[in-house]
Each structure stands twice: as structure tokens, then as C-alpha cells.
């Protein structure tokens, strides 16, 4: 068992080191093959762990400077390992083609070398068995992803994004470190604790620290600001991994902490639920307004994080208030959604990356007509969309369905106060679902359908086959997980949680065939391709189509208090009575609520404090000697006093 695991680690490490050391042309295709092999092996290796037992299998044990390091696999980590394996395979297929078309020479070697190492660090986070190992790999993951975000460093926006990301991810590490230290103080060991409880304030404090550390990493609103900057700035395979896997890794940590480390506590349940609702609703609302397709997907990751948080929070509440059946439903929904989100978000980012590369832009308003030009990529993107807007029987549906069922179930089982909470969460949750549909109708409709809106989109061509074979793996998984979800759940020992979607799928298929055959044989088959509507002009141009901002304008009007759009109008008049208008400007601003009310005040305060400290350090040698002298005097005094 552990030999196979070490071999997998070796494969990942090898495929990371090869392109960093050997500068041969297209060396990344070799390293990708190794990485893909590692991914397949990892999936096969994790499957039995998923089926056989829920007990932990130790794979590696050792010590690092007196700290115990342990690596083991159990059911929860096996699930995320499978996700990681599948994403590795997809990215391995996709990356060589992407790198071939990328500009810049040396950075391509760096990207192809760092991707497997980044994957390896995430794998080790998932499999870590002691808190200190977890922390080390967590930090490694942060640093590697920082360098990957920095790939296109010559762009001002990328530098800003990666620095922002570095700051936030370090704050996250600080919180996680603090939480782990506090936990060590209260339990006295670096092992993963199990179901800590009691009124010790250290325990609550350590939970809060761990929660905020993880929340920053998984982009929970209001700690999300780095995510929509960093994810789009990275090269597409990296964005796919960051959104598909790094967020899932953070969520794995959350699930592990909430369900394993601590005994459920109602207050924490409410906290998680509140952050979940906030992230879900605001995440999708910002996604709706976003014009950058990769930014839209990044915001939608925040919304999905929120959904998983809602499921986790519900698990805590149901466990505390004694409805184990509903609790199981909620946590099953959360875990399933984490896995399926990883799959379909990877799929969406990879296909969107191909489109951006082919069209030479990330702006939705400059795309259009891509489906005709890139049918494979477009079709796969569409499957991802069906999944993310939770159309049965695709995989995105299962998680949302289980969470909705548990919410409605909670409505009829719990006490009146909690019933009100359930109604509120239920309405917010379904609002999220509905807005997701609107968001992705915009994403698909304006990017892939109708006429191209720019030269780049007009000349877009289909990518080489490995670049859609990679996403196709994820699309198959996405559809398969949904269709066979009932079977999968009963195989894992939770029968009857879900209706049988296989029957639904077969019926949908059968009915479609019947309808098609009936129409084909009885209706007229005459078909003509023509101009259906040209408004009396010679030919409709893409200027006449709806734009992204136009498409979402009604929703923005409906939810004006949330978006806080500011309309700025300046007018100049020719006369003093302000009758004769001379000139003026008008503009619509989206107020960046969190940036203006949370980040900037905090930054200003730190800045002010830092300037006080900076006054002490003026670089003058004499001054520093004085400091040293004062310190020594002070020490002597204190020591003398205490003696």
C-alpha cells in the first residue's frame, strides 16, 4: 500500500522536476504524460480505500525536527484524492497544447514544472495526518500557487493580483498556524484531535482561528477579494486547479475540522451557515455582473463554496438538535457538491481557457459565435454549465438537491426559531440557484451563441484534440456522477438518500428519441436556412445583439440595494439659471462594498501604525547603536530588578 503511494508521489515529483532541469523543446509533454499516469494511479489507488473501510490507513510515518509527520488515507480523503487524480489527468492532457500556444519561453518550463508540484502539495495536505504536517503542506501549496499566479508577471494587473493573493494567503496561514498552536496547547499533541468539547475558551478560539484561516483560502465572503483577482490572472490550467482543487482542498480541511476535530456546537453551526449564505448569494450576484469570463467563473466558485458551507452548517445544527437523518443528508450534499464542483469547475475553466486563448480576449462582450467555430470546446462547456446550474441528472444537481431536501425536512422537524432560520436559508439558497441559471445563460449565450462581436472571436479556431480530451474526461465524470448518484450512494452504504436518477435519465433519453421520431415521421421535413429577422436592413450585425451588461441590467435593477450602483452625472450649463445645457458626463459605478468598507480601512490603519514604526527606523547607524545601548541598559535593569 505505502509503496504504491510513494511511487505516486515520486511520479508527481519527477514530472515536476523534469521540465525545471531539462530545457528541451516540448519537454512538458513528457512531464504531462508522467503526471497523467500519476493521476490515473492515484484514482485507482484511492478507490479501494473509499470502498473497503472508513478507518484510516497509515501510508507513511516519520519525524521532522521532533515534530511527528504522518500521512494516512481514510474515506473522506480518498474522495478528494480521486478528485485530484481526475483533475491531474485532465490538466495533463490539456497543458501541453496550452503551453505550445503560450508566449514567453522560460516561463513555460516553470509553469509545467510547478503544476505537478502544486498538485503534489495539495495531495499531501489532503493526506496529512498530523497538524504540523498539514501546516507545512498548506504553506507549500500557498507558495507554489503564488508563483503560478505570477506567471504573466509583465502585466500590472497580474502583479497586483499575485501580491494581493500572497498577502491574503499568508494571513490565512497565520490563522491556521494559530489555531493549530492553540489546539496543541489544549490537547498537548500534534495528532489530529477527535471531537474536542468542553467549555475551555482555547478550544473555541482554536476553532475560530482554523475556520477563518480556511475561509480566507476558500474565498468565503468577506475574505474573498483576492480570489476574483488571482484565479483569472493565472494561466488556464492553473486557474482550473486553483478553483477546482485548491478550494476543494480548503473545503476538505473545513469538513475535516468541523466533523472530526470538534464536537458539534450550535453557535458554530449558525456561524458557518451565516457565512455560507452570505457567500452563496453575494458570490453569484457578483458573478452575474462580471464581464470577464474567467472572473465570472471565479465568482461562481465563491458561490459554490457558500453552498458547501451551508451544507456543513446544517450538519452541525441538525446534529446538535437531534435529527441524524437530516444531518447525514446535509453533509452528504456538502461533500458531494465539493467533489462535483471540483470536477465541473475544472471543466469550465479549461474550456473557457481554450476559448480565451483562441479569441484572444477574456471579455464576454467581445466573444460570440464560438460554438460554431469550436464545437467540441463549446459542447463541453455546455455540459459543465448544465452541471453547475444543477439540471437533473447532472452532478451539480445532487448536492443542491440533498441540501434543499434537508432544509425542507428541517422545516418540519425543528423548533419554531429554527424553522424561521430554515425558511430564510431556503429562500436565499434557491435565490442562489436561480441567479446561477441567469449567470450561466449569460455566459453560454453571449460567449458561444449568435454572431462574433470582435475580430478575435471571428477568427477563433478549434483547439487540438488533447485540449478537449482533458475537459471531456471531467465532463464524463460530471455526467456519470450525477446519473449514477443513487447507485454510488447505496454502494457507499447510504441507500435511499436519493431518487434514482438513472431512470430519469433513461426516460429523458427515451422520450427525446420518441418525440424526434414522431416529429420526423409525421411533420413536414422541409427546412430552409435563411435570414429570419433583419429589421429591414441588409444584414444584422453583432452590434444589434444584446451585450452582457444589457442582459443583466434588469437583475441589477431588481437588486439595486445589493449592487449599490452609483450613477454619477456632471453637468455644465451655459447660463447661471442652469437652463442651457452645455456639456456633461454620465457614468455608472459599481460600489466595491467590501473593498471600500472593510479592506481599505484596515489597510489604512495598518499603514498608519507602520508609519509610526517606520519613523524609528531612519537608517542612521548612530540611531541604531542608541537603540542597542538602550536595550542593553533596560535588560540589565530588569534582570537586576528581578534578581
Amino acid at each position: 500500500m505505502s509503496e504504491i503511494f510513494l511511487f505516486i508521489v515520486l511520479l508527481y515529483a519527477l514530472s515536476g522536476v523534469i521540465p525545471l532541469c531539462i530545457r528541451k523543446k516540448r519537454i512538458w509533454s513528457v512531464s504531462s504524460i508522467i503526471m497523467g499516469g500519476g493521476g490515473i494511479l492515484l484514482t485507482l489507488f484511492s478507490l479501494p480505500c473509499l470502498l473497503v473501510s472508513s478507518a484510516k490507513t497509515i501510508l507513511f510515518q516519520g519525524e521532522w525536527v521532533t515534530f511527528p509527520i504522518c500521512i494516512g488515507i481514510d474515506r473522506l480523503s480518498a474522495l478528494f484524492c480521486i478528485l485530484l487524480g481526475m483533475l491531474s489527468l485532465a490538466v495533463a492532457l490539456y497543458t501541453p497544447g496550452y503551453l505550445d500556444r503560450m508566449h514567453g519561453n522560460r516561463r513555460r518550463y516553470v509553469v509545467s514544472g510547478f503544476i505537478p508540484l502544486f498538485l503534489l502539495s495539495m495531495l499531501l495536505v489532503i493526506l496529512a495526518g498530523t497538524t504540523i504536517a498539514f501546516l507545512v503542506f498548506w504553506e507549500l501549496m500557498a507558495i507554489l500557487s503564488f508563483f503560478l499566479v505570477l506567471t504573466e508577471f509583465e502585466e500590472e494587473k497580474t502583479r497586483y493580483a499575485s501580491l494581493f493573493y500572497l498577502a491574503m494567503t499568508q494571513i490565512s496561514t497565520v490563522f491556521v498556524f494559530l489555531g493549530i498552536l492553540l489546539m496543541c496547547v489544549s490537547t498537548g499533541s500534534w495528532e489530529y484531535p477527535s471531537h474536542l468539547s468542553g467549555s475551555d475558551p482555547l478550544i473555541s478560539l482554536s476553532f475560530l482561528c482554523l475556520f477563518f484561516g480556511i475561509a480566507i483560502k476558500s474565498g468565503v465572503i468577506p475574505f474573498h477579494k483576492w480570489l476574483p483577482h488571482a484565479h483569472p490572472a493565472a494561466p488556464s490550467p492553473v486557474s482550473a486547479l486553483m478553483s477546482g482543487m485548491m478550494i476543494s482542498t480548503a473545503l476538505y480541511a473545513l469538513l475535516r475540522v468541523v466533523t472530526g476535530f470538534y464536537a458539534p456546537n450550535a453557535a458554530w453551526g449558525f456561524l458557518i451557515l451565516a457565512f455560507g449564505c452570505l457567500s452563496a448569494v453575494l458570490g453569484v450576484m457578483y458573478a452575474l455582473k462580471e464581464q470577464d469570463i474567467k472572473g465570472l467563473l471565479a465568482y461562481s466558485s465563491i458561490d459554490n463554496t457558500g453552498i458547501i458551507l451551508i451544507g456543513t452548517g446544517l450538519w452541525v445544527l441538525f446534529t446538535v438538535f437531534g435529527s441524524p437523518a437530516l444531518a447525514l443528508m446535509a453533509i452528504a450534499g456538502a461533500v458531494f457538491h465539493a467533489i462535483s464542483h471540483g470536477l465541473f469547475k475544472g471543466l469550465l475553466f479549461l474550456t473557457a481557457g481554450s476559448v480565451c486563448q483562441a479569441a484572444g480576449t477574456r471579455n464576454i462582450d467581445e466573444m460570440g459565435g464560438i460554438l460554431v467555430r469550436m464545437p467540441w470546446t463549446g459542447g463541453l462547456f455546455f455540459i459543465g454549465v448544465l452541471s453547475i446550474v444543477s439540471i437533473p441528472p447532472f452532478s451539480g444537481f445532487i448536492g443542491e438537491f440533498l441540501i434543499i431536501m434537508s432544509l425542507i425536512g428541517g422545516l418540519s422537524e425543528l423548533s419554531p426559531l429554527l424553522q424561521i432560520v430554515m425558511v430564510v436559508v431556503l429562500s436565499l439558497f434557491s435565490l442562489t440557484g436561480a441567479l446561477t441559471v441567469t449567470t450561466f445563460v449569460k455566459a453560454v449565450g453571449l460567449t458561444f451563441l449568435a454572431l462574433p462581436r470582435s475580430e478575435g472571436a471571428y477568427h477563433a479556431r478549434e483547439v487540438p484534440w488533447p485540449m478537449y480530451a482533458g475537459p471531456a474526461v471531467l465532463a464524463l465524470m460530471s455526467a456519470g456522477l450525477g446519473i449514477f448518484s443513487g447507485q454510488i450512494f447505496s454502494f457507499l452504504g447510504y441507500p435511499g438518500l436519493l431518487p434514482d436518477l438513472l431512470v430519469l435519465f433513461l426516460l429523458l433519453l427515451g422520450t427525446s428519441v420518441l418525440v424526434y421520431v414522431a416529429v420526423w415521421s409525421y411533420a413536414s421535413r422541409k427546412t430552409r436556412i435563411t435570414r429570419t429577422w433583419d429589421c429591414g436592413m441588409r444584414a444584422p450585425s453583432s452590434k444589434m445583439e444584446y451585450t452582457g451588461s444589457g442582459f443583466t441590467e434588469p437583475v441589477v435593477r431588481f437588486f439595486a440595494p445589493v449592487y449599490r450602483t452609483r450613477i454619477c452625472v456632471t453637468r455644465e450649463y451655459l447660463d447661471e439659471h442652469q437652463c442651457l445645457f452645455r456639456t456633461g458626463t454620465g457614468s455608472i459605478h459599481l460600489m466595491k462594498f467590501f473593498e471600500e468598507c472593510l479592506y481599505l480601512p484596515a489597510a489604512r490603519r495598518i499603514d498608519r501604525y507602520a508609519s509610526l514604526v517606520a519613523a524609528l527606523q531612519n537608517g542612521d547607524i548612530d540611531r541604531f547603536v542608541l537603540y542597542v545601548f538602550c536595550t542593553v541598559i533596560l535588560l540589565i535593569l530588569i534582570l537586576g530588578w528581578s534578581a
Partner: protein
Amino acid sequence: MIGESFIFALLNVAFVLVISPFFMMVIKKVKARVQGRQGPHLLQGYYNLAKLFRKETLYSEYAGCISRIAPYAALSILLVAAIMVPLFWIPEQELVTANIIVFLYLLVAGRLLIALLGLDAASTFGGMGSSREMSLSAIIEPVTVVVFAALVYVTGSFSIHDIFRTATTIFPAYNPTVLLLSVPLFILIIVETGRVPVDNPETHLELTMVHEGMLLDTSGRNLALFELSHAVKQTLLMAILLNIIVPAGIALELSVGALILGGVLFLLKGTVLCVIIGLFESAYAKMRFFQIPNLFMIAFFFSILTIFIEVML
């Protein structure tokens, strides 16, 4: 048992397909009469469909595969949804899950396809229609879920079959929760089928149209399929309202007499509801687009009220 549910599926789907165009025409007739016109013949719906199926289909030269697939997929999705909603007979076993949440998400799937179709032909009207449709659906969706949650809460079951079965036994005619639930369910029909005051199915004026805007570029058999699926959707939503507030006559076991009685009674109940919808439509003017959320809030309020009353009772 499985044979019985197959018979049910076939009968139910066939019945829905047959009566849906009739219900559409009843509403049209009522509206015409209120306006002092003669109105179309009650069978005109069938003639229209037959005509459209015989006509040539035009595709926009800019349209992709969505325009080719969406008409078939939209109708198939609604036909599968039709298996979930029993009209006149509740079988003992469900062929496919009749979970009300799955039903709801199938409706979402249909809407997604039509909204994409609106964008596919590169015309402004399509974009306008799908933008409006998706904006409205973003607000009606939470209301729908809460209405259905109230329904589940009152009847204690997720399966539409069981909800109807409970309705036949526990509901006395003037139960307050039933009356309260009927208001949001009625508003749901109005919204989902695009009727005045939310949308106007008769107009092709760019200021007002929502649903028609998306279908402006379809023709021939595709248009017929969309009209049929629209009618089927209306019948299904009507069936949910009818079989909960007046469940009388719905057959519980397989016998020819009971089935015929159930079918005829459903036809009568449906016609009465269509008359009410027609009168309702005639009594209101089209609302301003940005005022529509107020209507949804009424539905939301009533379903929350249902839950609270049920908690207190």
C-alpha cells in the same frame, strides 16, 4: 406493479398532450368574450398545431445547434415531468421519482433551453426576451421553492403522488391552509405561463413581450413543439393547483369507470380554472416590468403565512 405504472405513464402523458391545447383555447375564448369579440373556435389550438407541423421550418443562418435541439428537448423534458404529476389517476407505484424538487428543476431545465434559444439567432428581440425571462425567473424561483416547501410541510411528503393522495384524504374543503396555498399556486401559474399582468401572450410588441420574444425566430415544427410544451407546462401547473384544492374525483385504483370519471372531472375542473384565469387576465393591465417583483412578494408572503399557520395549528 411496474406494468401498472407504465400504463399510468402512457395514459397520463397522452391525456396531458390531448387536453393542453384545449385549455389554452378556453382562456383565449374567455378573454375574447370579455373584450366583446367572438374569439377562436375551441378546437382552434389543434388546427394551429397541425398547420404548424405541416409548414416549412426556417433557421437563422447564424443559429447553431441549440436551435435544432432545444424544441425537442424542451418538449421531452416536460413530458417526463408530466409522468410525475398525476392528472386523474394516482397509481400505487412511481415509475420515475415524483419528487417535487426534481419536478421544479426539470422546469428550470426547460427554461434554460428556451432562454439559450432566444440568444441563438442573433436577433435583438431574442436577447431581450431571454434577458427578461431569466431576470424574472431569478426572483420567482425562491418563491416557487418556498411555495413547494409549504406544500411539502403541510402534506408531509416530497412525492407529488403522495401529496395528491394526502389531499384526497386529509383536506376538508375549506381548510385555511389550502385556501392560503391556492393563492401562491395560482400566481405561480400566471408567472410560469407568461400571462397578464406579468407577460402578454397575445402581443408581439417589443416593450412588453417576454416569452414570445424568445420564440420570435422559430417557425414550423419547432414553433409547434414549443407551443405544445408551453401548453403542457400550463396543464401540469394547473393540475398541481386543482388536485390539491379540489381533489374530488381523482381515481386511486385501476378501473375503467373510475378512470373515465376522473378524466371527465379533471376536464371540467380545468375548464373552470381556465375561465378564472381568463377573467383574471382580462381584469388586469400588464404590469410595468420593474413592478413585477411586488406580485411575487405576495406569493412569497402567502406561502410563508401558510407555514406559520400550520406551525400554530
